[in-house]
């Protein structure tokens, strides 16, 4: 096994990887941008190398700087996390050239799967069902429009190099196509350094089902069941669960086998995920492969007991899979809520700032993968996810009830979060009935309205009155310079703001 590993990432996933390294006596090296000097990752790692700059492009996505840090500190391997360099074939290649193990798949599989056209063709060849789509290689907007018209609206516009919802847009009418195309291309350029666009037929009311697979460098491959990620906002997953309530054991065996075929088609040699759309008739369509660890991997860890990061390390170190397919059993059910610094009432607008107080839930069947601590300032430069809360139960009902309980205990002061949205969701009849599709939130706008229980109006009035009273009392005691009600530097300036915010 490796003796020292660099983590080319930040936030909760850097913590996730450092935890695993710590557990196995492997030295960890964090890299950090200017705003991340005070991050948990820096604090928990054995070593920390500064990458000067604020933006991703200057820091976590700068291949040369990252490799340089790994070489100087004597790392034998690099873990890319998700996002940033994790799905850049040239980074996997650069690691190989530098004689450093990339904890992820070999570059050829990343490029094959990263390019939507190649992936499509490979999948069709391997007998995997695919959705109609068009790769706009030359950047000709008119050609893209024509392809969209041929497959029929609605269509999805996606960044070819993308993932995580960035640069992704649904277009319902031909006249909206070009403006959306431009914006997606521009976002793709800034997020991935690649403005190529992929157009895909939009499947109505699909469920998002994905299969976790793991392949070693010796030709062994297993799947670790599926996850369902149908609850999305801004085309990004916000709640996930495993197993999917819509998948029967027979379907699981079948899509597991298809997923393994898909991975073997590119000689895959790490953990990865095959994403499918499932239509109302239980047909599966290959969407894409994520050639990396997923944000939502903890739900799979809960139901299988497998440490997926440890498995990644073992595979990257050349070890054989320690499990056969028969060793993988599913126990119970797990749900994940992504906790974001954002305002669900304002179309999930990010809400960076200082976390003035923090209470995280725990107890039986609760896991919180967090990247923050009390006093930490959520920076404006990166994704606003602050933690992933997951629960486990003997069945879906117990996992959901436990999630409701855990969300109740979760308290974040100083910034807005989506915790109350998750609480409302966990009590929603359609969610409880597992009546899901990727437009779930749009179909249920009542989730975005606060105040469920009339019995709480009186205590809400009392608490607000006392808060107002205390604030005024403090204001009276303080000098004029200290009359700011919010402790965050960002918030201070925003008191007078009348900014209007609209969904894209």
């Amino acid at each position, binding site marked *: 096994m490796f003796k020292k590993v660099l983590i080319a990432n930040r936030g909760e996933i850097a913590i996730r990887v450092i935890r695993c390294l710590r557990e196995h006596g492997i030295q960890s090296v964090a890299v950090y941008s200017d705003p991340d000097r005070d991050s948990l990752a820096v604090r928990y790692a054995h070593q920390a190398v500064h990458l000067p700059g604020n933006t991703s492009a200057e820091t976590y996505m700068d291949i040369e700087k990252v490799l340089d840090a790994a070489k100087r500190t004597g790392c034998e391997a690099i873990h890319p996390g998700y996002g940033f360099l994790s799905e850049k074939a040239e980074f996997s290649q650069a690691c190989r050239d530098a004689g450093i193990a990339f904890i992820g798949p070999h570059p050829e599989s990343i490029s094959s799967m990263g390019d939507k056209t190649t992936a499509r063709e490979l999948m069709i060849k391997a007998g995997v069902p695919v959705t109609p789509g068009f790769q706009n290689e030359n950047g000709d907007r008119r050609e893209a429009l024509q392809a969209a018209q041929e497959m029929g609206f609605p269509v999805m516009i996606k960044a070819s190099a993308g993932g995580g919802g960035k640069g992704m847009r649904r277009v319902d009418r031909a006249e909206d196509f070009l403006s959306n195309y431009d914006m997606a291309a521009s976002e793709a350029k800034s997020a991935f350094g690649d403005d190529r666009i992929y157009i895909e037929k939009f499947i109505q009311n699909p469920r998002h089902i994905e299969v976790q697979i793991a392949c070693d460098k010796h030709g062994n491959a297993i799947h670790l069941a599926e996850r369902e990620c149908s609850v999305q906002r801004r085309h990004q997953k916000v709640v996930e669960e495993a197993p999917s309530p819509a998948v029967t054991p027979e379907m699981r065996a079948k899509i597991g086998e298809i997923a393994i075929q898909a991975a073997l088609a590119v000689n895959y040699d790490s953990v990865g995920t095959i994403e499918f759309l499932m239509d109302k008739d239980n047909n599966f369509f290959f969407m894409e492969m994520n050639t990396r660890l997923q944000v939502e991997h903890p739900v799979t860890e809960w139901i299988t007991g497998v440490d997926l990061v440890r498995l990644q390390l073992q595979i990257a170190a050349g070890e054989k899979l320690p499990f056969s397919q028969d060793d993988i059993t599913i126990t119970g059910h797990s749900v994940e809520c992504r906790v974001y610094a954002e305002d669900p009432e304002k179309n999930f607008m990010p809400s960076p700032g200082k976390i003035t107080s923090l209470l995280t839930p725990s107890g039986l069947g609760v896991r919180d993968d967090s990247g923050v601590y009390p006093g930490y300032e959520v920076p404006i430069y*990166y994704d606003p996810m602050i933690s992933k809360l997951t629960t486990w139960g003997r069945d879906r009902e117990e996992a959901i009830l436990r999630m409701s309980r855990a969300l109740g205990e979760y308290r974040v002061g100083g910034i807005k979060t989506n915790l109350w949205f998750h609480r409302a969701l966990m009590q929603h009849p359609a969610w409880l009935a597992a009546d899901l599709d990727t437009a779930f939130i749009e179909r249920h706008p009542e989730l975005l309205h606060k*105040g469920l*229980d009339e019995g709480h*109006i009186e205590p809400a009035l*009392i608490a*607000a009155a006392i*808060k107002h*009273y205390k604030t005024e009392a403090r204001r009276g005691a303080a000098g004029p310079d200290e009359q700011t009600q919010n402790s965050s530097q960002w918030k201070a*300036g925003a008191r007078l703001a009348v900014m209007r915010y609209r969904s894209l």
Partner: protein
Amino acid sequence: MELIATIDQNEYQLKVEQLGDHRFRVNINGVDHEVDCMEVMEDLYSMIHHERSYDVHVHHGKKGHIETHFYDDSFHVEVVDPMQKILDQAMGGGGKGPAALEAAMPGLVQRILVKEGDEVAMDQGLLVLVAMKMENELGSPKAGVVKEIRVKEGDNVESGAVLITIE
């Protein structure tokens, strides 16, 4: 202290008195409520009222708005001093006069979608601000004419900065 509070367009008359270290009397529409309210952490109140217990997080939103988060429920409460309320009504409310598009968070001005002198509708996109890895299209606070554009593409703006004024 007398206050007017609003939840979901219902208005309540409130009166607050502090009786002790963590004892308060709050009168709601003429009815007194004595509560034991301890601030156990910053802005986190442990409230006991008639032996019912509430662990409530109070969070300042925009001016006069207080979010109250309970274990399993959340409310928006708008709180104003009666004097302020009278003043606001005297001003005739919003909608008239010039308005400013401000940045509620710091970010990078990626694209400006209008020119000075353009006529714009309410909510029409004026500017694209990149913040926290998302593009946010900011809409006009009112219908009117673009008076002044105070930023240019590529500018980094601070929270609260006036970006565009509309008349």
